[in-house]
């Protein structure tokens, strides 16, 4: 309950801050539309030559694009801004202010920066997803929706934990912004089902940089092609990775010596 209250407070602050820069809204709108247009036009070119891509029909690919934007929106809405701010605050010592607050510090660093205009990506992703489902013309059953929501949550937890682990490395290393960039540039591979990639790349996109869990697996759940074992695997990965992130965060905090030291 407390978490939701805090999230709401930080969200409100961000809205108050950002509404002063309303042009940013239009810039973001423009860029998001352009990106979405590119993705859709790319699909149009590819599906003018084929019926299926690695077993995915065009409307199923559309659903994947929806998930891609949805998850990308979540990343740029809270995860990315929070984690870059964390790295900065470890370097210049302003993490002190967070640590003195009577709330869990991991929670605070994770939600205190919200890039509200990224909601556009999120909404657009949701819109594409709904369109795809309508075009697929099948009523998504209770089982598939439940699986989808679970996998979306698991994917979100995995991506968040992965970012937190990378950002926590800043307690030991000086420059880690570059590592975060790696995720951002690998994420583009998640716009396509990972099953089309050769084995080594699929492995890298699942277990080195968890892009597959973020996009392909939720989309597989929605289109009813996710096996039960994969479902368990994703859950396992989410639990394991979030525990690891928590541990590394705690170890890092112990090393943190503050601004004055």
């Amino acid at each position, binding site marked *: 309950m407390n978490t939701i209250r805090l999230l709401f407070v930080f969200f409100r602050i961000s809205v108050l801050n950002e509404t002063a820069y309303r042009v940013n809204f239009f810039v973001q709108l423009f860029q998001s539309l352009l990106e979405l247009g590119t993705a859709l036009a790319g699909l149009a070119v590819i599906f003018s030559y084929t019926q299926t891509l690695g077993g995915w029909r065009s409307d199923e690919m559309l659903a994947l694009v929806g998930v891609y934007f949805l998850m990308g929106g979540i990343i740029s809405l809270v995860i990315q801004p929070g984690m870059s701010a964390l790295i900065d605050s470890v370097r210049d010592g302003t993490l002190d202010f967070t640590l003195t607050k009577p709330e869990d510090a991991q929670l605070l660093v994770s939600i205190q920066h919200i890039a509200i205009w990224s909601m556009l990506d999120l909404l657009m992703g949701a819109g594409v997803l709904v369109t795809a489902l309508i075009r697929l013309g099948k009523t998504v059953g209770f089982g598939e929706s439940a699986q989808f929501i679970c996998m979306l949550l698991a994917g979100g937890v995995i991506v968040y934990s992965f970012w937190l682990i990378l950002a926590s490395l800043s307690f030991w290393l000086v420059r880690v912004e570059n590592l975060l960039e*790696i995720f951002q540039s690998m994420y583009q591979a998640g716009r396509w089902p990972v099953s089309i990639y050769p084995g080594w790349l699929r492995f890298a996109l699942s277990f080195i940089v968890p892009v597959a869990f973020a996009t392909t697996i939720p989309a597989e759940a929605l289109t009813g092609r996710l096996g039960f074992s994969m479902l368990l695997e994703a859950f396992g990965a989410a639990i394991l990775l979030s525990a690891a992130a928590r541990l590394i965060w705690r170890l890092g905090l112990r090393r943190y010596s503050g601004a004055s030291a």
Partner: protein
Amino acid sequence: MTALRELNALMRLYAQQFRTTFASMVQYRASLFIWMISQVLEPLVYLVVWSTVSNSSGGSVGGYTARGFAAYYLTLMLVNQVTYTWIMWEYEYRVRQGFLSFALLKPVHPIHSDISDNLSSKIITLPILVFVAGSLALIFRPTAELTWWAVLAFIPSLTLAFLVRFLVEWSLAMAAFWITRVNAINQVYFTLMLFLAGRIAPLSLFPRWLQITADILPFRWMLGFPVELVLGRLTPTQVLIGLAAQAAWVIISLVIIRVIWRAGVRVYSAVGA
């Protein structure tokens, strides 16, 4: 005689600039490495996508087999590496922060230091990229019909492609003098490039009207054209027309730069004062 002396001075300038920027590029090798991941990943992703399509539709799409796509995209990866620039972000930063003032104090046009910056970073990254492309070639087994004249014509076309891309992006970077939010412009530019330079798909797979658009605009001449040329997908006439189009774009952008640079610097000093 004076022309010769000037050229000599310019050569020495490049050599010196080259040493300086080489040192700083070695310093920022981590950023260079991360930049390279996206340079490799984008063509690799489209290579996989198109070979999947090709395999599932009887082994060939629009004249490209899976191995043909491998040849196309691995060559594209290398040509892109040779021709890319980051000058648009650089200028936005320089103008916003006022660092351009230092460049303006020097008695030579700042474009010279930008060119040698660009080339020296590539000397570091190109061997790595050739190695990566070579390893990928072992996996994807590209095939292409090489002809001696196409390989020969590839050299001038690659040089011209570098010049076209550098000069067009340099003149686009000048937008930073007038507009504070150049990111939106840059993104439009990159989106157009994605389609019209042949990055999303070889241009011959696009509908006719898009191919004509690509012939008129500069994007194809920066990337797609040298790739198609060296893979032997163009007739000699098409190659000659292409080289002429590249040369034309070099001249056009040089003229634009001359005009815009003067006007831009005037605006810039007004802001800085």
